[in-house]
């Protein structure tokens, strides 16, 4: 891999650690105020929803409706059935692989 990606990895790791450490150093009232809590909660939901959608539909900078939609549906059913995380991931992969195989 290019050295450029290593640079981004190092920087992202440093920022991740700084965020954690920040909580131990900041004055309590700053982060514990309700507004910060609400923004953090919403930000997390927004990012995960966006990542789910991007991994389902994006193919570079195009939208593609393919076997990954089947993976999304199968994973949703598995989660609704309260299966453990790995089972959900494996079911997603299986659904995707089977749909692709069946289409070819």
């Amino acid at each position: 891999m290019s050295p450029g990606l290593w640079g981004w990895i190092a920087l992202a790791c440093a920022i991740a650690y700084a965020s954690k450490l920040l909580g131990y150093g900041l004055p309590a009232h700053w982060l514990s105020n309700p507004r910060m809590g609400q923004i953090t909660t919403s930000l997390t939901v927004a990012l995960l929803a966006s990542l789910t959608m991007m991994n389902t539909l994006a193919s570079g900078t195009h939208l593609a409706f393919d076997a990954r939609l089947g993976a999304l549906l199968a994973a949703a059913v598995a989660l609704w059935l309260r299966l453990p995380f790995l089972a959900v991931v494996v079911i997603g992969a299986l659904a995707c692989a089977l749909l692709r195989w069946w289409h070819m």
Partner: protein
Amino acid sequence: MGLSIAAATGLYGISFGALSIAAGLSLAQTMALSLLMFTGGSQFAFIGVIAGGGTGAAALGAASLLGVRNAVYGLQMSRLIAPRGPWRWLAAHWTIDESAATASSQIDASEQRRGFWVAGAGVFLLWNLFTLAGALLGDALGDPRRFGLDGAAVAAFLGLLWPRLRAREPVALALVCGLVTAAAVPWLPAGLPILLAAAVGAIWGWWRSRARPALASVPDSSGSPS
């Protein structure tokens, strides 16, 4: 509870290792993320953006924004477990969803402290071991699409999101952000639609906080890891 958290982490680590290799990262880069970043949601975000063809800068942006919640956990943990001296540096590194949730679920102060350190150390050890196992497995599998590993990534992100959708409001927010992402993909460079959705989420949170008090920010420990 410790055992179930450890098992979940192990299985989750295998998925991360395999998907990271499928995204095009090397074994060393995959391990660097698990050892040094050590916050699963951000790690998945980082490789998810790279897999989608996004730049390193976009991957860094998504991972860093997803890590903001760890600052809130850090604040809670600095009060609950009050680490001293060099322990504070280690405590910060091990401040993640699982350790914060374990500590917060205990009532007694010494149990809170014990829960934090046991969950933090256990998850750190297992997360890295299983990332390595997953990465080696991913290397052996070859073409990731043949085994539906791109479908596994979809399932993994939905699995991280799911435990946070217990009320109507986060469901509405998730749907809006999903639509914004899909609408933005054809128009923006790869990776940026995620940051656009993040901006929508932050504005939504800011707006909602004027309307009513905040939700609890520590997830309960029975949920999926992130």
